[in-house]
């Protein structure tokens, strides 16, 4: 860390991230409940991604943090201090806006100098800070350009430099990579992550790109319809989605309709609609399910394997391959079965042994721990993407 900051007079203020606590935060616009009862606590130096479909309330949540919207109810504490009554310019939060919001009539250097000017820093001090910030985003050579003379990615990095130059303990980013092309987006992911580690700042990062959320964040909060559906580490989220919405929004999931039954051994199992074997299936989260209720069972496509029909008995459902989509490292097989269409993503390694063609009869198999059940009522709205 001190290596990075060598030669810069700000070593004494090596940023340690702020601690953020949201407590029952809600925002209503007339009758629209944009954010409902969000409670989160974000640790020092943590990278938290907020993931959700369009209209989920992500921007509204950020605006309450920055102070541009007043919460209808609830509290926001930064490092233990309630900031509800603090004006935006006194919060000292770094913000990277969705479309960068650079000052068009100022050069890159003047843009980056702005927060320092506002903090009444002497011009000499400003220079070294600007230099350092521009080095961090690799734009040292662009200081005298105007924003409209820069590419999208460069503009994005100016916005980043401007937001970090005053060492805010908390950095908010609202879909900062939304306007960039795919390659640049992937490159910037790494850059932002590196920056955050160097700065030690707490970052709240809003996105509706699950790839971004999963690769960059320490924890991810999935929002839907104003509420946080699940808060967890990326692997938590992917492997143990708390709701059908999360299972569907983060990665892909096959859903099958069914009902829970209470078995003789006291365990809840699921019978799938249309399943002619009538098998009572185990699911991974059986203990959290109530008996005798409608459920959806979710299984990830890559957890599904296809077996020859001969020699299978027991639980596996039989169906016909109706589509094979080659994806490079994997191939997606769509199988028509009595419980519905099943997507199976098979790796090339598996395929070397047996290749399936359209029209083949197959048995669809998954392990019990790969299946999770969700009560039907839990799913309040389907994601839009």
């Amino acid at each position, binding site marked *: 860390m001190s290596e990075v900051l060598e030669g810069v007079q700000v070593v004494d203020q090596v940023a340690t991230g702020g601690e953020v606590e949201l407590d029952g935060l809600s925002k209503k616009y007339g009758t629209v409940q944009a954010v409902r009862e969000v409670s989160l606590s974000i640790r020092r130096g943590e990278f938290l991604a907020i993931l959700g479909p369009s209209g989920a309330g992500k921007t509204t949540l950020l605006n309450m943090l920055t102070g*541009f919207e007043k919460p209808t109810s609830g509290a926001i504490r930064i490092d233990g201090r309630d900031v509800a009554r603090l004006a935006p310019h006194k919060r000292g*939060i770094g913000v990277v806006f969705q*479309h960068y*919001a*650079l*000052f*068009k009539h100022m050069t890159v250097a003047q843009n980056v100098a*702005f927060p320092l000017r*506002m903090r009444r820093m002497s011009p000499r001090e400003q220079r070294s800070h600007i230099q350092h910030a521009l080095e961090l985003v690799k734009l040292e050579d662009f200081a005298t350009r105007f924003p409209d003379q820069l590419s999208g990615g460069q503009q994005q990095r100016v916005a980043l430099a401007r937001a970090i130059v*005053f060492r805010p303990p908390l950095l908010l980013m609202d879909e900062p990579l939304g306007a960039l092309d795919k390659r640049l987006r992937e490159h910037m992911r790494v850059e932002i992550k590196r920056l955050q580690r160097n700065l030690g700042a707490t970052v709240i990062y809003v996105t509706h790109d699950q790839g971004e959320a999963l690769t960059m964040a320490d924890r991810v909060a999935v929002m839907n319809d104003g509420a946080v559906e699940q808060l967890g580490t990326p692997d938590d989220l992917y492997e143990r989605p708390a709701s059908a919405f999360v299972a569907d929004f983060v990665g892909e999931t096959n859903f099958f309709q069914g009902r829970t039954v209470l078995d003789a051994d006291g365990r809840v199992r699921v019978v799938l609609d249309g399943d002619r074997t009538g098998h009572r299936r185990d699911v991974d989260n059986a203990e959290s399910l109530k008996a005798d209720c409608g459920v959806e069972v979710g299984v990830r496509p890559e957890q599904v394997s296809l077996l020859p029909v001969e020699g299978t008995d027991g639980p596996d459902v039989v169906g016909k391959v109706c589509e094979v989509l080659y994806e490079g490292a994997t191939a997606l097989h769509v199988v028509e079965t009595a419980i519905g269409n099943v997507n199976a993503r098979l790796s090339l390694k598996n395929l070397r042994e047996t290749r399936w063609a359209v029209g083949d009869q197959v048995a669809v198999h998954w392990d019990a721990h790969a299946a999770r059940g969700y009560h039907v009522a839990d799913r309040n709205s389907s994601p839009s993407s």
Partner: protein
Amino acid sequence: MSVDSSTERFTGGLAARPRRRPDRRWLTLVPLLAVLILLFVVPLFSLLIDSFRSEQGFTLENYREQVTSPVFWRAIRRTLVIAAISTGICVVLGYLMAYALTRMPKRLRGVLMVVVLVPYFTSILIRSYAWIAILAPGGLVARTLALVGIDSPPDLVFNQTGVLIGTVQILLPLALLPIYSVMSGIDRASVRAAQSLGASPAVAHWHVYRPATSSAVMASAALVFISSLGFYVTPALLGGPGDALIAQSILVQFSNLVDPAGAAAQAVLLLLIVLMLFVVLFRYLAPSLSVESTGSATPRRGRRADTTERRENLRALRARILDSGLDAVGRLRLPILVCGWIVGAALLATPLVVVAIWSFSDATYLTFPPEEYSTRWFADYFTDEAWIGSTFLSLGIASASAVISVVIGGFGAFGLVRGPKRPRLPIAILVAMPLIVPPMIYSLGFFILVAPHDVVGTNLGLIMPYVVLGLPFAVSITAAALRNLDQRLENAARSLGAGSLSVLRHVLLPALRPALISGFVFAFLAAFDDVVVATFMSGPTAVTLPLRMFQDIKLEVSPRTAVVAVVLLGAGAAAVLLRFVMAWLVRAVRVALSRRGAS
């Protein structure tokens, strides 16, 4: 006949493909240029020539006389001072009001826009006249002050104060509207960004929002300043005997002192000032010309960093002082905006309200609010043949000249937008000139040109200059609409075999109808509000309505003009209403017919 023309059109369409026909679209510019040159440029030249004329031939004596006359310089100085002060007030007030408009809820904005727009479309003469009822002894202000025991109110009218108030009221919408249209397109994200970076709201506004509006502010300041240089009606009604502005001075020289050459010299000098200002301010005015933006008014860029340390520190210190000042102002921003709107709305709306009430006064002299109410002045107006005659004369002349303006201007706009690129800017400048050159200068020139012929006092003599005054509106509005119209539409129609006339009838006219209508309205109002041209061109039998009102007010301040104003405003409102009712009726009939067709 129909077979003939359709086969001809058909073969014409086929022939067009292999052999490219020469582009003759520039021909549509010919009537526009002919009218502008013959009826606008030539009069100004004859003015120029007359200013050098004496019995012995060429002379500079006329100029020497004016330039050495302290009266002339005083008029010039008064004009510049009034123009500068009113421009300052209009721009500051317009900026505050426009900004407040962008930040308020939609419904309130709609209401307040009406407060801005109704005066904007109301005649300058009527608005100036209303101020007499407000400011003169026996008027609203004096009577109100008397209620609280102040018996000797300050002199607010028939002096420069009155001129200033009237000028500000008339130019305020002109200052406000262009600023508002730019402001409503500004993305507030950068202001928020500045705030998140530590700038208080006022500081963020100053450093980020204001620079984005600066060229619009300059444009409206330039427009207001240049317009106010030529004001005649307002200072003539609201000024005192010793407060003549330059436009009045020209007229006095011409008619009272019977010195046409001296008047011409004064007019040429004023024209020089106006043209010099136009050149200096061109980069701000260019975007409002009828050509695609030339890019000359891009916001100024921040200065390159100055490297000497001392200067830098000094600048930082200055910025710090500015920012603390802004912080202080920023804390008062809500009261400032509210006050701005209260003052602005009072300025804009009071004259109209006063006129409406005053028209029902029973008195023959000025008392406001009226002591007795009656409709006798209405009866008086409707039974007076001279007044009714003037009303119909003005309606007819303004309609005729507006129609001609729209036809010539419509074709001209087509040539301007679709014709050759090179002459666009010069033509656009020429088209804008009748708006820039004060009407007093133009009218004098036109009068000098046509005086030897028998047109003064005829309808034709009035219609010709009014066509010129209407052209800037007709061309700019149609050109803007044409530029938004996809040219491929015309090309597609042409490739399907449509001749020029069919393209005009089936493609252009329907698409441009709203623009042509609003061009007509503006051109109509330009003619219908005019006093200055009429002063020169009216004869004893052909007195236009504004001129009759103007002379009536100069004679005695009675509610008669208020009655005319109410009648005209009522007619305008009825026309607007009728349009809606007609549209609704047409739709209803169409729905009924389609229902019957379906069943």
